[in-house]
């Protein structure tokens, strides 16, 4: 048994339960026992998941999704290639993704307005511009809140961010904030007690902890002591959960690891697949380094795009092959696109005005390119799309009511989708 973290081999189950019985921390331990029989696949069947591929720094959309070979000044050196989607062409440096384009769509007419890294990151994760009166919840936390917590006996967080901090949950509460995996190629930090603390000692620690916690709760000092206990219960359950196997790639076959790529992005994509397969609702996988103000084309063709193409291509193929794609939406975006104009340093600068993102799966139609820009990639010529339209499309695809509205701690209303419309062509 690989997950015998707290039930030690040298300790009988009855002895262990005796240790736990005198405290209320016994409850998660009991559930741990019964969850051994639960079937993860059955749990997640009804629920949709989302994998967000987050390109931090601002990805060069015109060199990936919306090539302009006819623009002598803005086109750049890359050539377009055909894909498995009829009439949709993407960059020559994306051959693996090109084979999967019948599942994906490109939106080529997004205006996201924010050209600063922090503000753009906030905008694309929440749909809103930053505002000092309220911290808008990240959209991944909305998924966790609306869908994830309906799954009972599931002991992993429902919002997980790999290689990136993700977006905080704001007033939805820390339970829905991203659980960050800093490096998918290493063990998750602090998931196990330090060396020297065996299961026997951990049991003793939890028993003592339960006693102190219960005494403080019984003194009637309000809600906070109860909430603290709940978070610790959840954490102990996670430490005990066999689902934490999805946070380790150790047992993956070498061929699978190679297909995804063994860098942090490829490994992150593989971990994301394992997590949604297990039942996690939202996983964000980060790939950084896209702020290519200088010598962009070498960086893009030698480093960034091969890593992106390998991981993303393998992910979509793997999801499709496992029949997970209909329930798993895959979205590709960053904080903004990059200028059509190529600057004197051979790079492109920040550009939120007319850029491209990609999305598919989760029951969406596939193989389309929506909207367009002019020959030089500057002006939107067809079907302008705003960030809230993207959020609306994602929300609808996940089966979350697009009218969902919260009340912020300051008593003001906040809509998940504020004046955005789902992109009809994709639904």
């Amino acid at each position: 048994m690989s997950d015998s973290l707290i039930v030690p081999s040298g300790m009988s189950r009855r002895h262990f339960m005796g240790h736990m019985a005198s405290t209320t921390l016994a409850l998660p331990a009991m559930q741990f026992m019964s969850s051994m029989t639960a079937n993860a696949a059955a749990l997640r069947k009804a629920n949709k998941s989302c994998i967000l591929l987050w390109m931090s720094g601002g990805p060069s959309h015109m060199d990936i999704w919306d090539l302009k070979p006819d623009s002598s000044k803005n086109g750049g050196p890359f050539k377009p290639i055909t894909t498995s989607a009829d009439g949709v062409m993407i960059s020559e440096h994306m051959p693996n993704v090109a084979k999967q384009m019948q599942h994906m769509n490109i939106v080529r007419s997004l205006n996201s307005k924010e050209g600063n890294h922090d503000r753009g990151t906030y905008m694309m994760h929440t749909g809103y511009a930053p505002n000092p009166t309220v911290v808008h919840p990240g959209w991944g936390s909305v998924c966790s809140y609306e869908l994830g917590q309906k799954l009972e006996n599931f002991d992993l967080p429902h919002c997980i961010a790999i290689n990136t901090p993700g977006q905080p949950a704001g007033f939805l509460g820390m339970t829905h904030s991203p659980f960050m995996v800093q490096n998918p190629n290493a063990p998750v930090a602090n998931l196990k007690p330090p060396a020297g603390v065996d299961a026997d000692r951990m049991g003793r620690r939890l028993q003592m902890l339960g006693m102190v916690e219960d005494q403080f709760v019984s003194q009637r000092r309000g809600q906070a002591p109860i909430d603290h206990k709940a978070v610790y219960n959840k954490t102990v359950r996670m430490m005990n959960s066999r689902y934490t196997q999805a946070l380790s790639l150790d047992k993956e076959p070498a061929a699978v690891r190679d297909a995804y790529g063994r860098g942090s992005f490829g490994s992150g994509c593989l971990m994301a697949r394992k997590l949604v397969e297990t039942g996690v609702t939202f996983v964000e996988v980060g790939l950084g380094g896209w702020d290519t103000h200088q010598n962009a084309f070498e960086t893009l063709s030698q480093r960034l795009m091969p890593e992106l193409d390998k991981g993303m291509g393998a992910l979509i193929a793997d999801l499709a092959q496992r029949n997970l794609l209909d329930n798993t939406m895959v979205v590709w975006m960053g904080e903004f696109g990059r200028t059509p104009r190529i600057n004197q340093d051979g790079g492109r600068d920040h550009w939120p005005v007319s850029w491209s993102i990609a999305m598919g799966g989760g029951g969406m139609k596939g193989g389309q390119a929506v909207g367009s820009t002019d020959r030089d990639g500057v002006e939107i010529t067809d079907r302008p799309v705003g960030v809230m339209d993207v959020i609306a499309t994602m929300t609808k695809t996940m089966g979350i009511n697009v009218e969902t509205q919260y009340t912020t701690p300051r008593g003001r209303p906040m809509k998940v989708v504020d004046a955005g419309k789902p992109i009809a062509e994709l639904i």
Partner: protein
Amino acid sequence: MLMDRAHWGMVAVLAAGVFLSGAGASAVDRDAKTGATTKSEDFVDRMIKEGWDEAKIKPSKVAPEPEFMRRAYLDVLGRVPNIQEATAYLESRDAGKRAKLVEYLLAHPDYAKNFGNIWTVSLIGRQRQERQVDRPALSAWLRRQFADNRPWDKVAYELITAKGSNKDNGAVNFTLAHMESGAVPLTSTTTRVFLGQQIQCTQCHDHPSNDWKQADFWGVNAFFKGLTQKTVRKENAAGLEVDDYTELSQRIPEDPFVYFDKRNAVRGAVPPTFLDGRKINLNSEADRRVEFAKFVTEPTNANFPKSIVNRMWAHFLGRGFVSPVDDFGPHNPPSHPELLDKLAEEFQASGYDIKKLVRRIMETQAYNQTSVTTPNNEKDDTLFSHVGLKPMSPEQLFDSLLTATSAHKAGGGADSEKRRDAWLGQFIFAFANDEGEESSSFQGTIPQALMMMNGELMEKAVGGKPGSFLADLLEKAQLQSRTAPEIYVINHMYLAALARPPSARELTMARNFLNSSPDTIRIMEDLFWALLNSNEFVLNR
């Protein structure tokens, strides 16, 4: 035996320090049972009581001494008391010891450090800043203001008007942190922090629930026009050019107006205009921010003292009269409007004396109560019938862990500061969240709980290696003869972590654990781990 004597000698010194330094304090006599002050004319207690009477609720009892002590240390020094401090206070039989404790804390260097940290977070948040912002310089500047007890109007004036090198004048970093987007963030942060007014939604439209107009936002913004920053470089020892400091200046703009788009697509224009409609002489040669700082801090501006009084009240009581603390306005009336007015007037009349204000709040009946609710008052969260629990900030939690365990000192002195800084970085990363929101409930996350349960800092903190807190404690226990060694050990662990002795039930259970195995130090580690991971440790009761 030697160590033991040194230990008790230390207690005596500290005890003397506590009581001698308190000699000049105005100790308020208080009925030990009800907590009511015998000075019946005190308007704070009277007006708070009127609120209870009106709502027909009864206040909680006076906090027991350990509870009051731990709360006072956390609120004033930003950390729990160490064993010596706790012992000195709890063993004292001086009837006026609460007031003397307050004096001791206000004179302690950690008071200025704590409030310097708190105000750094209020002014520029916890998130990583651009490299031109020198956070340590701002913290050091703030720490000096609190250490010298500078009048609050002077502090605010200097923060708003600061110019020059951000290294020489740490106050400059407040402005530097908010200059982007035409100083829009500076506009909203300055009015929010110093006046408690949230005008930022009027950036784009008139306020929906009060009478602020879009022009009010841009009128304040116009005071910040012409701000410029310049990075000054120098040659380092290796002869390479590196950034030295950032220079902030403001020129008088040729066009004093700022322009903005109204909702009806008409373009608006406004010159520097204060929130009450007053404008400046456009021919003035004075720095525009100087004009603005005068408007903010002049005695006729009642919002200025009210804002800080409300923030301080919230800091100590867990909730402001106006809550959130920075959202004053007709749409969000205070719970005790007359009391807030009177406290603000008193604060202004004192010459904006922060330490006096702290003393004033800490001697109130409301602050001296326990956080234990009664069936009669448990639903109350606006009338201060009991003290509210406050979750520790990341800085408080970190400093308290080090105070309780000396974790950074274990394993050699030379690296202890370096270790401390490295851990603090991890800690802030794991525990900090966005500071725009106050949180009244515990905001724990699974990664935080994992870090507290299994992380390196906790491993060092509870580790019983030679030279550690626990190893020293065990040695002392075996050398003394006043009490059974295991009782000595248990008492001191509870005192270090929770600032109280164990209950009879806790003592029995802990003794049973200790007697169950010959490996005493391992059991001690496990018990200390449980205490430091508990809700009672992380919540300021």
